[in-house]
């Protein structure tokens, strides 16, 4: 039975790919058929995916003996690149999450894209085609057996992200400074592409060291890993080992895809895409793929730790993750767009996972990856439900009072929000987030205060409080109080295709944490998640103070948020109380900066974008105006001048000589009348005529056209060479 499912794994990404091809090529006109094909394919992937996942859960020692199936793809000299599948615990839990969340979002999209209503999207079918292609990319990434096919899937997702963010590409806004969907798609594509190139470099480096990109030959080959940890990296990396350098380069891909600082700027704008896309790509799957990658290459990071007890690449990862987590949670507080808050929240939570992996919390990072996908997809879909229910109003300042108008959306959103905040015991987010904090705490207890784990722990703890605060703000502004606009006044609950997926996800947002409760609480061997995913790594010990602190921060943050925004709801047009408060203590500029995302967009625009445009202009001018062409043209002119000069010499001297000869003969003939007049005359005629003839011929050669000179020159050169060769032989 296990083998049966494992052997079918390769079908998982194939079904959505076929669905994409069929929809785009044949069924675009038929909306019902298109969404049925797309959802049907995804259902098959989900069934097989869960079959594989549960078979994997039931397979003892899968971690030590992963399942592998390969076929050759293309050769390069002695080595061959393969296509294949790989089933191991990390893959299995991710597959469990991805297939289910994808299916939920596919179903939800029927309602969101307005099927059966007059607001149905004109490109409805194409949407289902694109999301199917995306699912193919994501599932391909998860089942990949090697880094090359992982990279390929990674790129397919990037392309789909572009297509789907810019799905409403005709949309323009009256405000020219507001980014349009098309620009947002392009921005996302190019910014993540920068990250992708680092990943590519990492892959190239690894390939250079290993001669293979297969997981089995590289990441799961202890001998090779140790050798790599002892190999010094290229000089540009200072004294790092090759293993650290490769991991750091690959992590660059994560920084792009998972929107980590400093490449985070694309994700907030990606919200221009339809909300199912935000839920699917920019919350649950593609952005998580970056974290998945770091978890995948974790053996590469860990081996350096084993050898050196210190890994600079991990310090880098920890720093980026922790900084991103706090940085974006600060921004999230000041956002008024319902999806904008969630976008920054996602960046922040991804930072948590990255930071976790950076301090060595492999299991905790993977755990948070899975739980977050469920509750963040839920939150995005909830916000999408609000958007549809309120006729595309997204500004939270214009919402309010939806609790009774949209009860299903409200309660599921609360479940997701509490999970995000880490509300104690009854939410999945609590258990996974707590494990990260506990691990950082544990490490910092080992390493002392002047260490990365302390930094990580401190920043993540503050960020946990901020997370709870902005979640309470969001729930209060959206659902509590009285409607602040006409749209909110007339809100209605959304159809079952949207609310049922919300409820299913809410179930997991609450319960999924129970598979990873620390052993100190549930008893030895009962922390299933740790046991399955990472039993080769030591379990994070339970830390009561940390747990109490994070629980009280979650409750405290939620409570404070409710006090500020929920207890006395805002009236229409009223200023955000936090902004008012900060202005009162002369921090209005800081709030303004938070709302403007600390001006990173403006900074990058002024430097990188403008810089590249300028540089492109300069290069073009070097080519065309300043250096290269002027030199070429000058050489050309010299050539022409030389040709003109030789033509001048020709007409003056050579022709002159010919004509002169004629004249001399004429004169001689006149002088020597003793010759037979006929003979002389005949001779003169002959010479004169031939001179005339030759002159005419020469004139046609000397047309002043450079190309003719050139031909002559060329033919002459070739003839001379030919003669020379014949002479030599």
């Amino acid at each position, binding site marked *: 039975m296990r083998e049966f499912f494992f052997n079918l794994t390769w079908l998982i990404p194939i079904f959505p790919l076929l669905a994409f091809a069929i929809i785009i090529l044949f069924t675009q006109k038929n909306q019902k058929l298109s969404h049925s094909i797309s959802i049907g394919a995804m259902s098959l992937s989900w069934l097989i995916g869960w079959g594989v996942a549960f078979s994997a859960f039931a397979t003892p020692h899968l971690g030590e003996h992963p399942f592998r199936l390969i076929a050759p793809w*293309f050769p390069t*000299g002695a080595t061959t690149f393969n296509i294949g599948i790989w089933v191991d615990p990390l893959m299995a839990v991710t597959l469990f999450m991805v297939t289910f969340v994808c299916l939920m979002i596919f179903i939800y999209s029927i309602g969101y894209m307005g099927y059966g209503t007059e607001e149905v999207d004109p490109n409805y079918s194409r949407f289902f085609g694109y999301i199917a292609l995306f699912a193919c990319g994501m599932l391909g990434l998860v089942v990949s057996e090697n880094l090359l096919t992982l990279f390929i899937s990674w790129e397919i997702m990037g392309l789909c992200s572009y297509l789907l963010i810019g799905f409403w590409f005709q949309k323009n806004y009256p405000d020219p400074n507001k980014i349009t969907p*098309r620009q947002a798609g392009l921005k996302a594509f*190019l910014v993540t592409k920068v990250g992708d190139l680092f990943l590519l470099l990492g892959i190239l480096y690894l390939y250079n060291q290993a001669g293979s990109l297969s997981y089995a030959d590289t990441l799961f080959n202890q001998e090779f890993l140790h050798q790599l940890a002892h190999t010094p990296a290229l000089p540009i990396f200072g004294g790092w080992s090759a293993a650290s350098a490769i991991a750091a380069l690959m992590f660059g891909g994560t920084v792009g895809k998972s929107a980590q600082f400093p490449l985070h700027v694309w994700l907030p704008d990606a919200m221009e895409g339809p909300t199912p896309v935000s839920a699917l790509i920019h919350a649950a799957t593609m952005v998580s793929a970056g974290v998945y990658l770091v978890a995948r290459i974790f053996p590469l990071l860990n081996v350096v730790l084993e050898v050196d007890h210190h890994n600079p690449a991990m310090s880098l990862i920890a720093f980026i993750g922790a900084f991103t987590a706090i940085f974006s949670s600060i921004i999230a507080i000041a956002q008024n767009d319902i999806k904008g808050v969630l976008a920054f929240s996602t960046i922040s939570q991804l930072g948590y996972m990255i930071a976790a992996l950076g301090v060595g919390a492999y299991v905790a990072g993977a755990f948070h990856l899975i739980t977050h996908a469920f509750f963040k997809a839920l939150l995005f879909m909830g916000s999408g439900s609000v958007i549809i229910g309120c006729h595309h109003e997204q500004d939270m300042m214009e919402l309010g009072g939806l609790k009774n108008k949209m009860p299903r959306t409200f309660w599921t959103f609360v479940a997701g929000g509490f999970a995000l905040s880490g509300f104690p015991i009854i939410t999945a987010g609590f258990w996974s987030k707590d494990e990260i904090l506990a691990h950082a705490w544990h490490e910092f207890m080992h390493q002392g205060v002047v260490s990365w784990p302390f930094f990580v722990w401190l920043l993540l703890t503050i960020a946990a409080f901020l997370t709870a605060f902005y979640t309470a703000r969001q729930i209060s502004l959206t659902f509590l109080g009285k409607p602040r606009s006409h749209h909110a006044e007339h809100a209605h609950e959304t159809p079952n295709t949207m609310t049922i997926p919300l409820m299913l996800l809410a179930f997991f947002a609450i319960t999924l944490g129970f598979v990873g409760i620390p052993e100190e609480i549930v008893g030895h061997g009962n922390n299933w998640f740790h046991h399955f995913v990472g039993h080769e790594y030591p379990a994070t010990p339970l830390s009561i103070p940390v747990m109490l602190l994070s629980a009280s921060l979650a409750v405290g943050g939620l409570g404070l948020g409710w006090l500020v925004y929920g207890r006395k709801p805002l009236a229409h047009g009223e200023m955000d109380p936090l902004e008012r408060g900060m202005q009162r203590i002369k921090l209005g500029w800081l709030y303004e900066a938070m709302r403007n995302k600390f001006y990173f967009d403006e900074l990058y625009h002024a430097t990188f974008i403008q810089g*590249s445009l300028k540089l492109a202009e300069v290069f*073009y001018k070097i080519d065309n105006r300043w250096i290269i062409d002027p030199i*070429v043209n000058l050489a050309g002119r010299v050539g022409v001048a030389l040709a003109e000069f030789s033509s001048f010499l020709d007409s003056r001297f050579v022709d002159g000589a010919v004509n002169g000869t004629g004249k001399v003969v004429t004169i001689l003939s006149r002088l020597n009348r003793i010759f037979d007049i006929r003979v002389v005359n005949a001779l003169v005629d002959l010479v004169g005529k031939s001179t005339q003839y030759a002159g005419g011929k020469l004139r046609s050669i000397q047309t002043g056209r450079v190309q003719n000179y*050139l031909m002559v020159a060329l033919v002459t050169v070739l003839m001379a060479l030919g003669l020379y060769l014949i002479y030599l032989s």
Partner: protein
Amino acid sequence: MSFPFLSIIVFSPIVGALIITALPKEKHSAIKTVALVSAFISMLLSIYVFFGYDQAAGGMQFEEQMQWIPSLGISYHLGTDGISLPLLLLTGVIIFCGVLISWTQDDRPKEFFAFLLVLVAGVFGVFVSLDLFLLFVFYELAVLPMYLLIGGWGWPVTREYAAMKLTLYLLVGSVIALVGVIAIYFEAGIGTFDIMRLAEVGFDTGFQYAFFLPIFVGFAVLAGLWPFHTWSPDGHVAAPTAVSMLHAGVLMKMGAYGALRVGMFILPVGAQKWLPWIVVLTVVNVVYGSMVAFAQKDFKYVIGYSSVSHMGYVAMGLTTMTVVGISGASLQMFSHGIMTGLFFAVVGLIYRQTHTRQIPELGGLARKMPFVAVAFIIGGMASMGMPGLSGFVAEFQVLAGTWQTYPVIAAISLIGIVITAAYIMKVSYKVFFGPLKAEHEGISAASVIEKFVLFIMAALLIVVGLYPSILLNVINTGVVPLVMRLR
């Protein structure tokens, strides 16, 4: 002697050209039919040769040899191996597509098609010549009609300048290379121009150092190596569509092929000495070419400069002297040839309908020519190195090889990938999406013939992208022994 496949591939276009000269000039469709049939014969035979090549045996196959000028050791020696086979195939496809896309050519078609066929005969000849003298004869045979075609049928604004510039560059390049070749001939002292025999002569180190550079650079001028590249965008832009396709699609590959076959194959020690320096120029090609392409407002110039950038990857792959890098370069030659052929076909179709190539004057054409838009986007994705298309595998291999030898260069060259993505996306959007200009309301979709051409090329990009082994198995048989020589 077995059936002379290669000779027929080379001479079928020449016979076609001769028949065309004999036809009356008003018989347009007869002229075109003759051109198409002769191109088709060449394509069919190159496909046959490609698949008939015995990969297990490797080496030179389909050889033909005849004395030509015995006193100088010049012979008519043809043959093909894993390096030239994909190029043969490429040339066959491009000339066939080029003739089809010129089906509407009604300005002096007799001369046009005759020159076009002579040109392609020269290109085929270069790829199958195993005699240096013969190789040069074919080389010049390809260059001269190119001059006449651009000068006579090109874009009136720049054609004289561009044709002149191109011809000068190519002739200067070939003369420089010729000097090196003559030196090889005398230094070897065995009285032969036969490449295979010259390759067995161990030239001494000083000689190799001295003469590798002129040969490599002389040929690389034709491949658009920076800073000897400015002939190529100007030439591409001025040329009529089919000539641009041939020019960027296969003529530039002649340069890279010559640099490889003559320079690196005969003078491996010189290659080891100089290639680590030349690689710096190739990365300039990649990054600078893409930047300049980004700055262009003329659609055809964008494509012209994109060729400069992509040919940089070819040259870069060659300089790595690794199996993976040179395989990548060979695949990139094929991939770029098809891709750029596709691009120029699209630009030509659009220009014929709209009479402009200025990007700001275009827009929304996908609504009028959806098939063309899809084909261009497939080509564009190949150009950006998207997986599933041929460009990805080629560039991946080139980069893998480059990383092995020059990691920093590989890293810098990646900037080109981002810029390429930026300009391809910019151009695709501006030309095919966005608002349709009022004056373009009346334009019509591509004809069946044109769609067929675009389909062939787009399909090839996909097939090679998904199943690169179809080319790489053959390429490997040629590259592996070559790299052994370079070690």
